[in-house]
């Protein structure tokens, strides 16, 4: 952090005052500098690069993201040794700047629907790439619009008259030296978006564009010179990368929500408004119950997600050893779990960031609060790397599969092992969860059991509804579609259970008594707030009684008052530097108003005392009317 903060080369004007083109330019400038400095300091460890990078760009996207994050790794994992010789060093040295072009204008999460074609011509030993329709134009890849001179393009491979499915090809798109697009290539920027101003997300259209046979990434599947297609060995391996990227999004959910909480809670301690007691000065808005009710559950959530992100990363690292040795047995569950958790955490964080912004009243809406920026940067993660509803349904597929296994007498392991209990309970005549033991609302371990019972009930209900639909409908797909709202609910309940469980498990690892005490309160708040927001599920399943729900609601409010005392300390612990937070409202020193004024003076509209539109429009109008 200090390396970057103290480096004058990385300083620049507040991004809020720059146009999109200027922001892109700043980002490129810093990226270019960053690459030089990384080499200069000899930083090569991926984790260190990640921190350096996130500090240079202050957690914002940058045009080389796809080059560093997708282009280079894909070369490493999917290129043959010969291809690595040809492409890797030039790419490492940024002679080649690449991106990863998968999504098309008409096709996203459903990969098999992509339309771009790569047809093999044995006569010249080339692939002919085409974008046959408007919908097949590559659309969205970062760095594609203006920055990259190469792209890894995913296309349907045709050889010997047959379609062999999606494969990856290295396609040069701009002339080295002049950076002009090559003949047959149409490339450009897709225009302004909701955030991501510094990123040149691009489009790419190819018309009979030829590349040599050796440009297909052939570590796994191959096309021989005569056009013979050689199949890859296993396709499960791609799961690994997806798990990894989705685990990063879970971590990002935690971080983005933590930043928003830091800003909103600090500002709520500085802002005074109205009166609580007649005759007394205006209180800090953090003393209002409604304000605490908005912010503290989110604070607890930020902590919860932090632990979940760490858990997935650790699990991934633990089992990726097994994967390298060919043991893929744990991968399906982890894959299913991360899909759901990616959706659950990004949805929750997305809504939570907005809640934090609104909790800052009018000033939250100003870009100086920093929260609008956090929001627009974060919110696309609900869509990219797998649209959230589709992710929830993937988790549901795994849950239903596990449930079916249990019903047919097999046992399941891992996070879904609670389903094993269902078969035992089925001997009992009454409703599945109705006989669940008494829940103690002050004991996190007992609350984990309550969440477990809710997940079991909703998974069972969804699976039964699915079966009922299957008995009525013609196709599996139709039945699945007609149950999908239930299935998503089941997945959500499962993820919620996993999060409460992981948070609770974390408490035992904390050695400092005071820290453990406050985190136990946060954990309770997280679990109880979740119940109070989903009382219907717990009531309907008979897990909790009306009276207990009333107690839960009451206990939530007591916890708010307890956490109030430590709220600022709890966000200080996230340890965000002011520069990284980028917020006038969330400053560590709390000098909000003076600095808002200083900030506003720099607005482009304030560059001249009298704006030119006065002479152009106002004055003539006044003269005429």
């Amino acid at each position, binding site marked *: 952090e200090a390396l970057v903060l103290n480096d004058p080369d990385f300083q620049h004007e507040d991004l*809020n*005052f720059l146009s999109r*083109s200027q922001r892109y*330019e700043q980002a490129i400038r810093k990226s*270019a500098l960053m690459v030089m400095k990384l*080499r200069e300091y000899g930083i090569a460890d991926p984790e260190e690069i990640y921190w350096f990078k996130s500090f240079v760009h202050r957690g914002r996207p940058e045009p080389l993201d796809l080059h560093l994050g997708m282009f280079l790794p894909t070369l490493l994992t999917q290129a043959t040794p010969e291809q690595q010789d040809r492409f890797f060093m030039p790419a490492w*040295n940024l*002679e080649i700047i690449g991106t990863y072009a998968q*999504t098309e204008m008409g096709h996203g999460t459903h990969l098999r629907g992509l339309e771009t074609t790569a047809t093999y011509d044995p006569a010249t030993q080339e692939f002919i790439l085409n974008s046959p329709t408007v919908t097949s*134009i590559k*659309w*969205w890849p970062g760095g594609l619009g*203006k*920055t990259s001179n190469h792209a890894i393009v995913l296309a349907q491979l045709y050889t010997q008259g047959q379609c062999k499915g999606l494969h990856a090809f290295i396609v040069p798109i701009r002339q080295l030296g002049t950076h002009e697009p090559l003949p047959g290539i149409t490339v*450009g920027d*897709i*225009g*302004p*978006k*909701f955030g991501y101003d510094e990123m040149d997300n691009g489009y790419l259209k190819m018309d009979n564009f030829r590349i040599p046979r050796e440009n297909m990434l052939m570590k796994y599947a191959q096309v021989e010179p005569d056009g013979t297609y050689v199949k890859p060995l296993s396709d499960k391996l791609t799961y690994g990368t997806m798990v990894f990227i989705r685990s990063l999004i879970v971590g990002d959910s935690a971080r983005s929500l933590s930043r928003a909480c830091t800003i909103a809670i600090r500002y709520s301690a500085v802002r*005074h*408004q*109205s009166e609580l*007691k007649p005759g007394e000065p*205006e209180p800090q808005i953090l003393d209002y*119950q409604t304000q605490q009710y908005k912010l503290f559950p989110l604070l607890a959530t930020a902590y919860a997600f932090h632990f979940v992100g760490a858990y997935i990363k650790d699990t991934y690292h633990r089992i990726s050893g097994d994967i390298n040795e060919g043991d893929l047995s744990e991968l399906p569950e982890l894959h299913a779990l991360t899909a759901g958790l990616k959706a659950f955490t990004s949805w929750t964080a997305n809504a939570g960031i*907005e809640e934090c912004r609104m909790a800052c009243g*009018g000033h939250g809406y*100003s*870009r*100086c609060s920093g929260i*609008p920026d956090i929001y627009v940067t974060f919110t696309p993660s*609900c869509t*990219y790397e797998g649209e959230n509803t589709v992710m929830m*349904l993937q988790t549901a597929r795994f849950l239903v599969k596990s449930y079916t296994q249990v019903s047919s007498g097999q046992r399941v392991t891992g996070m879904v092992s609670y389903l094993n209990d269902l078969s035992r309970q089925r001997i009992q005549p009454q409703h599945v969860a109705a006989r669940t033991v008494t829940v103690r609302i002050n004991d996190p371990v007992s609350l984990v059991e309550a969440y477990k019972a809710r997940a079991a009930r909703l998974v069972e209900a969804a699976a039964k509804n699915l079966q009922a639909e299957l008995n009525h409908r013609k196709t599996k797909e139709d039945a699945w*579609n007609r149950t999908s*709202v*239930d299935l998503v609910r089941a997945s959500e309940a499962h993820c919620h259970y996993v999060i409460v469980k992981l948070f609770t498990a974390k408490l035992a690892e904390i050695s400092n008594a005071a820290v453990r005490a406050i985190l136990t309160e946060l954990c309770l708040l997280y679990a109880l707030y979740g119940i109070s927001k989903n*009382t219907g*599920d717990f*009531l309907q399943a008979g897990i909790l009684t009306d009276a207990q*729900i009333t107690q839960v609601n009451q206990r939530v*409010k007591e916890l708010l008052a307890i956490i109030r005392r430590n709220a600022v300390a709890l966000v200080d612990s996230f340890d965000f530097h002011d520069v990284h937070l980028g917020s006038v409202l969330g400053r560590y020193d709390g000098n909000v108003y*003076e600095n*808002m*004024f200083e*900030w*506003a003076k720099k*607005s*482009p*509209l*304030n560059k001249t*005392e*009298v*704006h030119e*539109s006065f002479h152009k*429009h*106002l004055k003539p109008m*006044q003269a005429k*009317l």
Partner: protein
Amino acid sequence: SMNPDLASERQTASFSVEKLTTWLDGGAEQTRLRRAVVEAIECDPVFSREDQYFQSQNERYEAAVRKAVHLQKKMQEMGWSEDGPEFKYIYRAVAGDIAFLLHRVFMRSVSMLGSDEQIAKWIPLASQYQLIGSYAQTELGHGTYLQGLETTAVFDVTTQEFILNTPKISAMKWWPGDMGRSATHTVVFAQLYVHGKCYGIHPFIVQIRSLQDHSLCPGIIAGDIGPKMNFEHIDNGYLMLQNVRVPRENMLNKFCEVQPDGTYVRRGSQKINYFTMTSVRISLISGEAVLPLMKACTIAIRYSAVRRQSKLKPGEQEAKILDYQTQQEKLLPQLAAAYAFHFINDYLQELFDRGYRDIQRKNFDTLPELHALSSGFKGMVTQCCTSGVEICLRACGGHGYSLLSGLPSLYTKIIASCIYEGENTILLLQTARFLIKCFMAASTGQSVPPSVTYLAAAKPGNCPAKNKLDFLHPDIYTEAYQHVAVRLISSTAAKLQDLIQSGVKKHDAWNRCTVQLVQAAKAHCHYITVKNFVETVEKIETKAGIQKVMKDLCDLFALYGIFSNTGVFLHDGYISGAQMDMVTASYLDLLAIIRKDAVPLVDAFDFTDKSLNSALGSYDGQVYQRLYEWAQKSPTNKQISPAYGKYLKPLLHNRLSKL
């Protein structure tokens, strides 16, 4: 040409779109008038929004000023006037993308708060744009709570002037629209001091810029507050006053006056001030909340009929995403909500008109109810519409995030409505205060305003539904909503009482119940919305299938509300677990039914392509062509990357020396 996927949606409509449109407008004549106004505005190139998504803050501001100036000319040309029937459609047609909205607030506050002499002096100047006004209430450190404002106005008897000051930084006026760059005058709200005594907040007309060269007046520091999430076209401003003197006549004095010797005189009722707030809150519901939600639904639903993704049946073409239950679950409840809130707006307008007539007859009895309803509905409707627009945005996959979809701008604009004209939580608490008061009155047999008589008539018993079809009876669900509202209001009132009886101070007890109070206020508004929807449907004379589809939408709105708040209906067993499963089943059935009419139902909102300004939502469904064409207009594509020569080229070519 029409995208066949969208064309097929329109062939199967169960009702006449045109008939529904005219019914929504309030008659064929209204529809004709609206279309004429929209057409006149949209065919005028000055009002074009074509480049909006590519413009900088400075360019947006300039365009907004240009449009505002041009609109004056246009109105003269067309013979439209401020109080003519066309006026309400003008704002819809320019899509809010115009300057000087605060100038109108300036004029309104002079008319409402000024004496006859003051009106005679200022209104002609303002309507001739010889001055440009703004309205400066909010300060850097103070918002919804007006008594906390810190700006001071001290009366100086010797010069017969008020001396205005910004005593500290948190007292700086902050946020007023049109004030950063445009306004020459503004109404400043300040604490009035006469002979050392504070008389509270009063309005003063203050000149801030020269009428000759637009430079700032002495003692004035003003400017733009910097970039926001939206409203780039508005110069929201700051204002600092340093010993600024204004003549005694500049205090707006219809209700209070400082006489030459410093005597403070109060006259008339100040209740009228509440009426102003009420009128603003009601008027923003339609334009700032419901219309944006209708637009977002139009864009997202049309796009969902065009976008195909994955397969529902093996061997078939990829399915329209609108055919997925999860997609219907996201969008169709928002569509139902847009209709529900359109009707609640009619309800509030009617109530308001009646209240206005009463007040003109000096009868202020309806004011508390009107104030409570306008606060609560402003809070509830803006919040629901905001989350609805966001759901629409996220339901459009990646393309929703492109500004060219139109959805990000709708979203960043509508979210501001949750804060301005009263922060929503505070407004809902105002409604709650009214409800608690009425509940107490009702339980001791006193009479209460019509909208809350149900509090006295609460019936015991449980939901009588026996199968899922029973939940399509409006009586069944309306009573469930009523039951929940009564339960939440009465249990909160009881808790308040308990706390107070146990020795907790009143204000403290109130703060400890605020989470429940907000919930109770929302339940009340939700109940009224459902009830009003039911009554609206009942009033439709059977025509062209409209009643049937509106009844379906009404059922959907009501059952979605239960489905997404199961806990409050299950609590105390009013609805049983088994009945809740019936609600879910009926709700999911309705999604599939309304799915068939989804596109015609958004077509009926009758937005032109220009007013949607969306590459995804246009009437013909040519989504991808339009997205591609519009992207090419982006300034980033008009030149070679500026960064290439400066940064990329050295990086690409100097590798040997540097790496």
